[in-house]
């Protein structure tokens, strides 16, 4: 489990649809240091597969993923 203190940037994309969650995630990852973690909150059901595909294509790691009350929470670590 990643502690709150370890999160470098928090993104609230609840209510936003594709392509916004991924575009915001990409921007945020570029703005943090390598190894830092970005938290993304989204309600778009497509975002689950999108974040996995983003991880696969860019090499940044999906460290943790959870869901509560229709809100998906992703923790992604910048790999390079």
């Amino acid at each position, binding site marked *: 489990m990643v502690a709150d203190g370890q999160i470098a940037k928090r993104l609230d994309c609840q*209510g936003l*649809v*594709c*392509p*916004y969650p991924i*575009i915001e*995630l990409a*921007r945020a990852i570029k703005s943090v240091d390598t190894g830092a973690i970005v938290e993304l909150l989204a309600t778009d059901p497509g975002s689950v597969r999108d974040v996995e595909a*983003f991880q696969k*294509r860019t090499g940044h790691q999906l460290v943790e993923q959870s869901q509560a009350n229709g809100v998906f929470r992703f923790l992604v670590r910048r790999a390079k």
Partner: protein
Amino acid sequence: MGERAKRLALVASKGSLDQAYPPLILASTAAAMGWEVGIFFTFYGLDILHKKRLEHLQVSPVGNPAMPPPIPAIPMLKVPTLMGALPGMTAMATTMMKGWMAKAKMPTIKEMLDLCVEADVQLIACATTMGVMGITQADLIPAAKCAGATTFLDYAADADVSLFI
């Protein structure tokens, strides 16, 4: 790293509102994943780059048998072609689609273009279409570059994904 980034080549040949979104969404998403992207705007797709027209793209229910009227209670109900040809129907369909977009918090065409420009997506305007339709460089947004089919084919030859819209 050392691995070449993926490249996406798109042709945007349509100028209606429902056909303007797909190339811009694909382009901005690919760019967000670090891909190189180029969109070749040709024929009516050029309206998407046209300074005065890009905020006034329309969609018509005529010949568009997928277009529904604003009566969500009957999901199979679509606008019959003859009805779609009545005066005001195109404006109604366009307003309806803009309403859907706003409700889903989708960016406008202009906002999508800004996103693309910010992400270094190449926006190429077809020189032939410009000649045929009397459109000049001054009519287009500053980010648009003018080129021909050879440029697109050369770009697409090294593309991993090429799509025609």
